[in-house]
């Protein structure tokens, strides 16, 4: 339905000036409908540039992007339509809240889609439900709420457009652990209910390891790894070499291996680590 195909994508910033830089190069990817993809990379690795191409906010310097078989940069119309299909939540989305009330702010997206009043109302309530915002808050000003609530309202503003693909740039940055968990749970719930594709950009490897089915690693504008969490985190040394973190369980497994414990590669959850250590003890090497 909304499978995303990226072909030979390249983007150059400030072309033709002394500040010219190729932000991303040679990106070839296919993201099937419904997949939960984690995108990781150091600051300036091009991941933000990449995700802004997926809903035609940026146009490629060369290369093509297809969403559901449609070339998204074909015309002005297709560039607008893709914004309804691919919802993008920016970093610190709470800084984009502007309406007088929470309700109106969530309704901004659906209103721009020129939906009927009932449809808008239904979508606002549904989106608020997904992120756990109670209806009592609807008439409050978004500026007087707590940081976590603001962020959830901002995410609801994008979810209310019912995008088939939901992209989130660092949705948990700056939140306390409880807030992080709630937001990730909300996102997973949205995906389960609607079958949407979710692309999650994050620095938090534990989050990515926990929920992503597939992990894409960016470095210096290129995709350097692409695979399941097990595959990617089994190359922990490489990840550390390009300036990234590994999940805590992976880091602990690496430390234990250095101490001489024989553990398999590709451990990224606490459960796996525990199982591997117990097995090891059963074998009597420790």
């Amino acid at each position, binding site marked *: 339905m909304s499978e995303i195909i990226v072909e030979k994508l390249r983007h150059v910033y*400030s072309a*033709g*000036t*002394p500040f010219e830089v190729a932000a991303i190069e040679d990106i070839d990817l296919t993201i099937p409908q419904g997949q939960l993809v984690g995108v990781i990379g150091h600051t300036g690795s091009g991941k933000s540039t990449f995700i*802004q191409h997926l*809903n035609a*906010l940026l146009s490629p310097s060369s290369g093509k992007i297809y969403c559901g078989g449609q070339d998204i940069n074909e015309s002005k119309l297709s560039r*607008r339509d893709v*914004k*309804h299909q691919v*919802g*993008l*939540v*920016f970093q610190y*989305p709470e*800084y*984009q*809240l*502007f309406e007088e009330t929470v309700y109106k702010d969530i309704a*901004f*997206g659906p209103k*721009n*889609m020129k939906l009927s009043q009932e449809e808008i109302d239904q979508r606002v309530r549904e989106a608020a439900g997904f992120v756990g915002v109670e209806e009592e808050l609807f008439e409050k000003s978004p*500026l007087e709420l707590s940081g976590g609530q603001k962020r959830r309202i901002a995410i609801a*503003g*994008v979810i209310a*457009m019912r995008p088939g693909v939901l992209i989130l740039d660092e949705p948990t940055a700056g939140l306390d652990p409880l807030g992080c968990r709630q937001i990730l749970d909300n996102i997973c719930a949205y995906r389960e209910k609607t079958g949407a594709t979710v692309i999650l950009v994050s620095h938090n490897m534990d989050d990515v390891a926990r929920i992503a089915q597939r992990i894409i690693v960016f470095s210096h504008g290129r995709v350097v790894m692409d695979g399941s969490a097990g595959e990617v985190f089994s190359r922990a040394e490489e990840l550390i070499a390009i300036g990234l973190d590994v999940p805590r369980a992976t880091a602990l497994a690496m430390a234990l291996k250095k101490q001489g414990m024989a553990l398999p590669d590709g451990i990224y959850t606490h459960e796996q680590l525990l199982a591997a250590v117990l097995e090891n003890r059963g074998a009597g090497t420790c």
Partner: protein
Amino acid sequence: MLKDITLGQFFPGDTIAHRLDPRAKLLLVVLFIVALFQARGWVAYGILTLVVAVCMRVSHISGKNIFKGLKPMIFIIALTGVLNIFYTDGTPILPGWIITWEGIARAIQMVLRIVLLITGTFLLTYTTSPIALTDGLELLLNPLKKLRFPVHEMTIMMSMALRFIPTLIEETDKIMSAQKARGADFETGSLMERAKALLPVLVPLFVSAFRRADELAVAMESRCYHGGEGRTRMKQLIFAGRDYIALALGILLLAGIIGLKKLGL
């Protein structure tokens, strides 16, 4: 889009124009502007154009960059040209026409004057970092302190404003992208609709500008900033030989142009 604004942009480099003392460059621009307004004849305009061309060459600023900066002014420049063509008395180019030979000559000179004026000031901002520029300005205006004119406060406000232009532009870009992702449309519709469409950008922008101002004030106070009294500089500006030579050349240029005016060239 918004990032293309070249207002007050600085192109880092290591040419003689970059190394000149900002005070010398400020004074040179003033001398140049005075000379520009003293120019009457073609010879004077020719010399000034040549001077600007040489300065562009020396400071490695391409014509393309200058043109980009001139773009927003194109309307004013064109209007000046057209008005001068039609409103100057003299000999008509064809019998019965309003357009006169004098009008065409004047139009060319006026357009040249504006273009040179803008280019001259661009050469200053393209080759001088905003910090150096405000530092230079503060030192040049220092005598005004005797008249209780708040020179330091004014220049620190200026450098802060300049410092935050790129930040605010970036922020505006980001907010615009975010609202576009929610289907906001800034490009179509009537003037009224477009003005309204800016609201979702302006509200968050103001909120964040106030937040930033607060944070900046706290950051400055916690580093014991207390105004200009007794403040020293890390980078002392020192007038070097090249600055004196540049200034001498500037004065020579002005004197030459005034001389040419007396000769009617």
